[in-house]
């Protein structure tokens, strides 16, 4: 069955620390990949997406993600986090279907 694994459930960082959140999906064919973010009290918002082309994708607020097909991974990175990045982050993909399959999420807390 198609699934997404997010390895880190809770992450706590100090401001200016670097961030990397892991995401692996299970599907052998062509995929669309997404990172969504949910700030406290707000709805899910798209952070970045990969459809095709350059596997290094840049999103909003300084986030980027790299698609590594051989590893079925789409890890999210940010070189220097801010207190305002405190949120829950969801990795999702679509593989051969219009359904978005989501991971369980990673709660990031950034200490000021």
């Amino acid at each position, binding site marked *: 069955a198609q699934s*997404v694994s997010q390895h880190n459930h809770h992450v706590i960082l100090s401001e200016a620390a670097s961030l990397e959140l892991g995401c692996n999906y299970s599907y052998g064919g062509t995929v*669309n990949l*997404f990172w*969504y973010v949910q700030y406290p009290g*707000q*709805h*899910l*918002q*798209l952070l970045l*997406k990969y*459809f*095709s082309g350059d596997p290094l994708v840049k999103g909003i607020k300084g986030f980027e993600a790299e698609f590594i097909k051989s590893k079925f991974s789409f890890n999210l990175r940010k070189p220097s986090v801010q207190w305002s990045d405190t949120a829950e982050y*969801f990795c*999702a993909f*679509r593989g051969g*279907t*219009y*359904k*978005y*399959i*989501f*991971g*369980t*999420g990673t709660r990031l807390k950034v200490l000021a």
Partner: protein
Amino acid sequence: GAGVSQTPSNKVTEKGKYVELRCDPISGHTALYWYRQSLGQGPEFLIYFQGTGAADDSGLPNDRFFAVRPEGSVSTLKIQRTERGDSAVYLCASSSKTGWDTEAFFGQGTRLTVV
């Protein structure tokens, strides 16, 4: 509207009652999704509409759940004989087309609590 709108934002109902949850997608969006998010979990697919028709309802957990989109815009998720296990945040999302390279825009969700 500017985004996907869901009403009500919160709903508390007694076990056994019937509830309806409404979703207003972004104007012109043809594709509409319903997801359910339980505590500590990611969104779980329920049903997908292309226009007025349910293209895939394989995620509906049982026959107590039903959704409609009669005019291809607003959608209603209906839950009969609610159970405590139905308590969750119900999310609606829409996208502008049904093709491959699209992204979904989510509403704020309806938090359903069955007591």
